[in-house]
């Protein structure tokens, strides 16, 4: 038997995920993967674990998403599900959840006083898509909330509109109401004047006399006035003369005084006349022109989209349901029950009914066989002869395949027949349980139990597998037969160690090219266990 490269399970922890033997190339690649992940995780990681580092931009997007007040009101599971759908890994989501309380409390300390401020600053800090429904929602509802500078122009536009409307209204009003009134009034006045004129003609003569009398009186008055004004003029002239005389006297006195002061100055020292200088201080106020209003941009550019996702299928496709399907749905919705349902009792009559013994050993899978360890190559070569012996393991006694016809379902297309020879399912050798079988082929093809992945840390595996009270078994075929005995927890660790040792021994034996007594010992044990049950 050839020395093979089949990795025996407990060789190294790195090989653990590759428990089934593989081509060396794949093993190297797996080791590289594991090597990359080993730095991250202490437990030797498999390919099925995400090994990417945490992406900071995704985490910050997630934090913004989670900080939004609307998101905060939603259940946690929906928040997580949303972030997962966006492609965040578990670590990134956990990190975002961890960070969420901190940024909101540190960056908005003062804004908690005013709701408007908080809302506007949260508008600034959080993401666009939440806000696009917000302004759209608020604007149609009117100008109820005046917070936020975005609503200014809405306000102005509506004010202008109102003014225009009122202007039009008043214009119409004027046209329709006031002008007719004006016209009426004018007409009325004209009519009155006409009436008055008519009356005046009658009273004309008396008027003339009165006018004459009035004119005389006026003349008399005028003459009186003339006289009076003349007197006033005279008096004014006299006053002017007197004033001028007085002025001249004053001038003379002033001159005398000047000369006297000059003489005094000359005589006595010079007296300084102090004058005050008054200067006006202009208050130059520098007016700070700092009233620049900054409009915060309400939209923050964030990648995370928050539009509500609908879970309906793509737009085109609601597949056409069968007609009776729709009928039944309508019946259900109306509350009717379809008539063909009957009461069925499908409970087990004996819940502890033991299962019957398996008649056939499990067959190796074609993918296991093909990629199998090299010691199975020998099996495949010899199995070419036993190609048609698949039928013999069926529990039905019909035509054996060395006779003329193969079952119809095995008739394949010619082109794939050749290839299939190598891929045929490996026959698992019959046990002594079978009675009416052909004599086994010359080389004993024995059943190799699928190797369970070795337990690197039995304690951890056991701890994880202990869901409630009883632990899960790491079962290969042999152990499941002994199932009842392993229910005692005390024996579990022993079981695990026994299992790992047994698989090791099987692996070791196989490495030696194994159809040796090791395998038969395993099979003997199984036979015995079947015999017991």
């Amino acid at each position, binding site marked *: 038997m050839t020395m093979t490269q089949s990795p025996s399970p407990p060789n190294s922890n790195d090989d653990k995920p590759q428990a089934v033997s593989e081509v060396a190339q794949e093993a190297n690649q797996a080791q590289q993967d594991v090597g990359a992940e080993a730095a991250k995780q202490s437990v030797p990681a*498999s390919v*099925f674990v995400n090994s990417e580092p945490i992406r900071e931009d995704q985490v910050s997007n997630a934090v913004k998403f989670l900080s939004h007040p609307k998101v905060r009101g939603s259940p946690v599971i929906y928040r997580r599900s949303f972030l997962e759908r*966006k492609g965040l890994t578990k670590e990134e989501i956990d990190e975002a959840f961890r960070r969420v309380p901190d940024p909101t409390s540190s960056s908005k300390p003062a804004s908690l006083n005013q709701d408007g401020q908080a809302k506007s600053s949260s508008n600034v800090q959080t993401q666009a898509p939440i806000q696009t429904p917000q302004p759209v929602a608020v604007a149609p509802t009117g100008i109820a909330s005046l917070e936020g500078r975005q609503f200014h122009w809405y306000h102005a536009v509506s004010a202008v509109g109102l003014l225009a409307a009122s202007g039009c209204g008043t214009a119409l009003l004027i046209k329709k109401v006031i002008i007719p009134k004006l016209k009426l009034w004018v007409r009325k006045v004209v009519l009155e004047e006409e009436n008055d004129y008519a009356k005046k003609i009658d009273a004309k003569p008396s008027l003339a006399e009165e006018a004459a009398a009035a004119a005389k009186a006026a003349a008399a008055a005028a003459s009186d006035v003339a006289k009076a004004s003349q007197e006033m003029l005279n008096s004014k002239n006299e006053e002017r003369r007197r004033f001028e005389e007085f002025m001249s006297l004053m001038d003379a006195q002033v001159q005398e005084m000047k000369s006297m002061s000059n003489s005094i100055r000359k005589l006595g020292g010079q007296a300084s006349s102090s004058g005050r200088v008054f200067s006006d201080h202009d208050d130059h106020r520098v007016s700070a022109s700092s009233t620049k209003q900054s409009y915060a941009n309400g939209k923050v550019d964030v990648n995370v989209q928050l539009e509500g996702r609908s879970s309906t299928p793509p737009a085109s496709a609601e*597949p056409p349901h069968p007609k009776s399907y729709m009928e039944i749905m309508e019946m259900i919705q109306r509350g009717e029950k379809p008539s063909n349902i009957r009461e069925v009792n499908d409970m087990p009559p004996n819940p502890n009914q033991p299962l019957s013994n398996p008649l056939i050993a499990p067959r190796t899978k074609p993918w296991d066989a093909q990629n199998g360890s090299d010691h199975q190559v020998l099996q495949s070569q010899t199995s070419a002869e036993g190609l048609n012996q698949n039928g013999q393991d069926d*529990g039905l006694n019909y035509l054996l395949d060395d006779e003329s016809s193969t079952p119809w379902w*095995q008739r*394949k297309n010619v082109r794939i027949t050749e290839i299939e020879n190598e891929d045929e399912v490996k026959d698992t050798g019959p046990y002594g349980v079978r009675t009416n079988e052909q004599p086994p082929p010359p080389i004993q093809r024995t059943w190799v139990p699928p190797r369970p992945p070795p337990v690197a840390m039995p304690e951890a595996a056991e701890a994880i597998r202990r869901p409630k009270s009883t632990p899960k078994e790491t079962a290969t075929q042999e152990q499941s037969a002994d199932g009842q005995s392993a229910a005692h927890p005390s024996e579990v660790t022993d079981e695990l160690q026994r299992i790992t040792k047994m698989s090791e021994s099987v692996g070791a034996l196989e490495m030696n090219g194994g159809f040796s007594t090791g395998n038969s010992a395993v099979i003997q044990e199984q036979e015995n266990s079947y015999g017991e049950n």
Partner: protein
Amino acid sequence: MPVFKTPFNGYSVRFSPFYESRLAVATAQNFGILGNGRVHVIDLSPSSPVINELIAFDTADGVYDVAWSESHDSVLVAAVADGSMKVYDTALPPQANPVRSLKEHAREVHGLDYNPTRRDSFLSASWDDSVKLWTLDRPASLRTFREHAYCVYSVAWNPKHADVFASASGDCTVRIWDVREPGSTMIIPGHEHEILSCDWNKYDECLIATASVDKSIKIWDVRNYRVPVSALNGHGYAVRKIKFSPHRRNLLVSCSYDMTVCLWDFMVEDALVGRYDHHTEFAVGVDLSVLVDGLMASTGWDELVYVWQQGMDPRTA
């Protein structure tokens, strides 16, 4: 190619991993909206293209999925719409069935998968947003994985790593889990719409395919899951179920509400390599045989189960 007519609308079909000619079919009355359910175990007759029913089990509520045990050749598990799972043993007399009723989910159980590597445990995916891990010998679940935000439609064990599985959910993500870890180890936000099915590539354990309501199937490599390896478009409506071939590395089959079953080779430029439009209603269940290369089966709401060999027309006699 034979046809099997079920009285109720088909929901799922699975080949037995032990017997080449045996299949299980999950059906539900009234399209699964409200009504009884039935699990059929059918068998292909070798000589003539005829399908016989071996046994059928009735349930109180519709059966959405069925899975064969990998350890016991006669045992199968059915996922029922009332939140329970029924375990049947065909080797026992019919009166002894079901042998177990596992009721823990709060809502419909929509998906089941049996571990093909360790063969001892199976997973249930439910509309109550959780996935549960069970073994046949225990009446209670071993683990509950609750992280999805919406219905979990499908679970699939990794074909190489016995502890790793994936779940596809209506919250538009696929999560990779390891039963040794308390929570999911990877989240793939694969589609913008609900993901109805997922399956691992049997020959490259890092490749996983997801099928979504957005009519596309995407192939992802978990080592670089931000960008899909490939996107397969061609279905006219939501893709309901996908399955990677157990025999060919690049082959995958899908069924859709557009009533077709399609065969894809995702490594090829023009990925669609086959299309079967034999169903006259939604095709909701499809499976490829592990034991016989090229053998495939499908079922749909037209109450028919077809079994045919790849390359042949399923409707020919």
